[in-house]
Structure formats: structure tokens, C-alpha cells
């Protein structure tokens, strides 16, 4: 399922967070949504999910806005920075709650818990979870509806190297199944071996959208070097 972002603009008071942003995210690949801190990545992703109303512009999934999808959580799963949990709720109950909200049943909640490793700490109250465990629980919640599209905002935050490697393999597997995966990050070394395409933004504007293979050159053999060159950083 293709995501089409067209002319997205958002201002907060006098500050323009996102300006006339347009790009596509294609299925069967992992697309990196890259930019320095404050570039507008989080605001854009929240607009893609109708959590923030854009000043202008549209985001569609196979032609439909997120809110107009028949079963939104069965089409798009999202792992967002700042999504929380009730502290007294166990990880298992959190999954069951949203499984019920989406109409997926307890068996599916157990399935995604196994898939993401949440089963290992399912009985623990969320207040006692580490950042890495919370990230896994967020990912499990996003997967409840077995969505064709996954949007992940800085998903490796708080994960240890082992967790990052696991996430990389997991997301590559989802893309290989033909799903559409968009991952935002400002840590380029973490997405180096993960993404096939990149969408780079800076100050809320599009810098470029291109396959990674076209960015890497003998002069700039890493994504980080290519990125810094394109965004005006050094080297």
C-alpha cells in the first residue's frame, strides 16, 4: 500500500514546523524518514495519522485519509515517541485492551506478544518496564491489526545493540512481505543497514527523496556522509 503525502504544511503560532512537504512511501521497502532534531519528522508523522490537523495538504493510504480507513489500525500500525501506558496496567492487559478496541481478540494479543518478545514481561506493570521493553510493547500494539503499513518514530530509542539488531531484522522481514515501512531517525548509523529509500527533510522542507543505492558513492561511502553532504553539514 502506497502512502502519498502532498503539500503538507503546519504552523504552531509563528513557527512553521512543516512546509509544503510532498513525498511517497512505497510498499515492499523500508523508507528512512531522516532529518536533524527539530526538522519536523514527528509533526509530519502525527499529521500522517490525523493526530495533528495539518494547516493544509493531505496524506492518503491507497487514496484514503487515515481517519477514513475502514479499520485504521488494521491498515496502519504506528510506534510513536511519547505514546504511553497506564502505570498500573500490565503489558499483557495493555495489549488485550487495544486488541479489544480494534476487535482483534485475546489470541492476537498473545500472538504479537510472542512475536515481539513482550511475553517475557507480560505480567509486569508498565510502570516497571525499561525503555526498551516499552518500545517492544509499543511495537506489539502497532502490530495487533496485522497492518500493511507501519510508521515508526525513532523506534530504536532506548534499545540496546541487541535490540536494535533484532528490530532491523524484524522490519526487513516485514518489508520483504510487501509491507510499507517508514522509519524516522536522526541517528543515521542505526538505519544504515536498514533502509532502502530515504526521505530527508530539514526545517520542515523536503531536501530529497531517493533510493539509498543512488546516494552512496565512492566519495561518500556511508549514509551519514551522504546525508551530511546533502544537508549542508560536514564533512
Amino acid at each position: 500500500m502506497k502512502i502519498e503525502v502532498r503539500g503538507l504544511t503546519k504552523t504552531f503560532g509563528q513557527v512553521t514546523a512543516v512546509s509544503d512537504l510532498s513525498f511517497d512511501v512505497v510498499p515492499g521497502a523500508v523508507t528512512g524518514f531522516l532529518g536533524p532534531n527539530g526538522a519536523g519528522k514527528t509533526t509530519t508523522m502525527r499529521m500522517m495519522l490525523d493526530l495533528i490537523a495539518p494547516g493544509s495538504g493531505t496524506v492518503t493510504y491507497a487514496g484514503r485519509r487515515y481517519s477514513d480507513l475502514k479499520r485504521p489500525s488494521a491498515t496502519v500500525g504506528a510506534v510513536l515517541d511519547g505514546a504511553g501506558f497506564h502505570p498500573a496496567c500490565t503489558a499483557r492487559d495493555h495489549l488485550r485492551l487495544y486488541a479489544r478496541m480494534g476487535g482483534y481478540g485475546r489470541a492476537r494479543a498473545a500472538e504479537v506478544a510472542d512475536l515481539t518478545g513482550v511475553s517475557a514481561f507480560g505480567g509486569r506493570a508498565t510502570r516497571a518496564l525499561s525503555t526498551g521493553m516499552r518500545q517492544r510493547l509499543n511495537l506489539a500494539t502497532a502490530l495487533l491489526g496485522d497492518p500493511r503499513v507501519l510508521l515508526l518514530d525513532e523506534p530504536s530509542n532506548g534499545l540496546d545493540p541487541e535490540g536494535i539488531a533484532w528490530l532491523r531484522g524484524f522490519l526487513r522481514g516485514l518489508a520483504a512481505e510487501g509491507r510499507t515501512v517508514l522509519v524516522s531517525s536522526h541517528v543515521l548509523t542505526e538505519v544504515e543497514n536498514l533502509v532502502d529509500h530515504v526521505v530527508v527533510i530539514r526545517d520542515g522542507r523536503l531536501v530529497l527523496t531517493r533510493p539509498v543505492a543512488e546516494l552512496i558513492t565512492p566519495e561518500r561511502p556511508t549514509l551519514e556522509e551522504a546525508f551530511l553532504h546533502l544537508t549542508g553539514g560536514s564533512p
Partner: protein
Amino acid sequence: MTALVAAEWLRLKSSRLWLWGLLAAVGSGLLIGLAALVGPENFNPPMPGLDTEQGTRVLLGLLGFTVFVPALFGTTAVAGEYRHRTVTTTALFAPRRWTWLVAKLAAYTAAGLAYGLLAVTVAGGSIFGAAALKGVTLGLPAGAVAALLGRIALTMAVYTLLGVAVGALLRNQVTALLVVGAYFYMIETALMLVPGVNGLYPFLPGGATAALTSFTYLSEAVATQTGSSATALLPAAAGGAVLVGYALVAAAIAVAAPLRRDIA
């Protein structure tokens, strides 16, 4: 919609909020039982005894005075989503936001009614038990006591709904709880002291509740303190209608408030 209401029930259960609700309902019921056991004639100032109509009404009115507690639970139900930032995931699973607010209203109105039924059952049992222990007959017939208790239970359901609306409007849990608590315990009572403004009291939630539960002690006490005549309450049915009106306005606010709001 059924799935959303069921999810709200599960949220209530898994967040342990139900346990606090249970304790508060049983506690407020037992408190009335304790007051009955002590006897209104031993209050300070002394009031008519349990074997008089007025004495029985005072005890039931005291239970009516605890209706703000389920309102706090309703407030917590929505404001807690913002506090713990679960609102993001909730909005992702139900992006048409009015749907989860309607589900919350339905679930918490039912929960408020359950709270009310439990509180009045414990209070009713305690009052009858205390009367039996003291060897006196209540000043009101059992049917009248049951009817008043039933009205209090319904009022508690309405107040829970009012609390949901305040939570949806204010979002900040601490502010919302303070506003609800201060309003019911301080602001309404203070308004009764202001000449001219006190004419509004019968139409405020507290005044309508007092009319519905025939609890005139507060307005009479204020009148005694100020040397004025007590503000006349509405007839019970009109008080009920005013409360239903508040409930409808509150439901509309609760559903409309988050519609255009960014969840950042």
C-alpha cells in the same frame, strides 16, 4: 461501538480504578451507617433523631453529599488518558474521536450507576441495621427510603458523566480534579451566600441534587448563618430534569471538546 465500550470496561478493570471505586462506594455507604449508629441527635449541632423523618432525610442527604466522588472517577477516566499519554494510542485505534468519547460516556455512566447502587445498598443496609441495633423505627417508611436511595444512585451516575465531561475539557488531571472538588464543596456553597446570586442555586448541580434527594439541610444552614430565608429548591422532578439537562450538555461537551484538538 460495542468493542470500544468493552475496551473501556477492560481499561477500568486493568487500571485498578474499579478497586478504588469499590472502596469509595463501600466506604461512603459505611460512613452513613456509622453516622446512623452515632445518631443525628448526637451530631454537633444536634439534629432530629433517626426515628424522625427529618433525621432520616439528613442521613440520606449526607450520602447525596458524596456524589462528587464518582464525578472524580469520571474526571480521572478521561484526564488520565492525557496524563499517562495513552490518548495517542487510543486516538490511533479510534481516529473518529467522538466514538471513543461516546464509549467512555457509556461505560462510565454504567460504572457510575454501579457505584451508586453499591453505595446506596451499603448505606441503606447500614441505616436499617443501625436502627435495628438501636431499637428504633426509621422516621420514613422503607419504601420512601428506597426511593430516595434510588434517586441518589441515579444522581451518582449523572455526576460520573459530568466528571467525564470536565476531564475531556480540562485534560490536566490534577487541575480537573481540583476544579471538580472545589466546585462541589466550595463554590456552590459560597454562591449561596451571595445575595441575588443565591437565587441560581436551585438550578446548579448541587441545588438540583438537593431537590432530587429532598436534602434541604445545607440551604437551611446557610440561611441560619446569614439570617436570610432559605433558598427554595425546585420540586424533585424538576431537580431531576435539571440534572438530566446538565448530563446532556456535559455529554455534548465531552464528545465535542477533543474533536479538533491536536494530540502532540
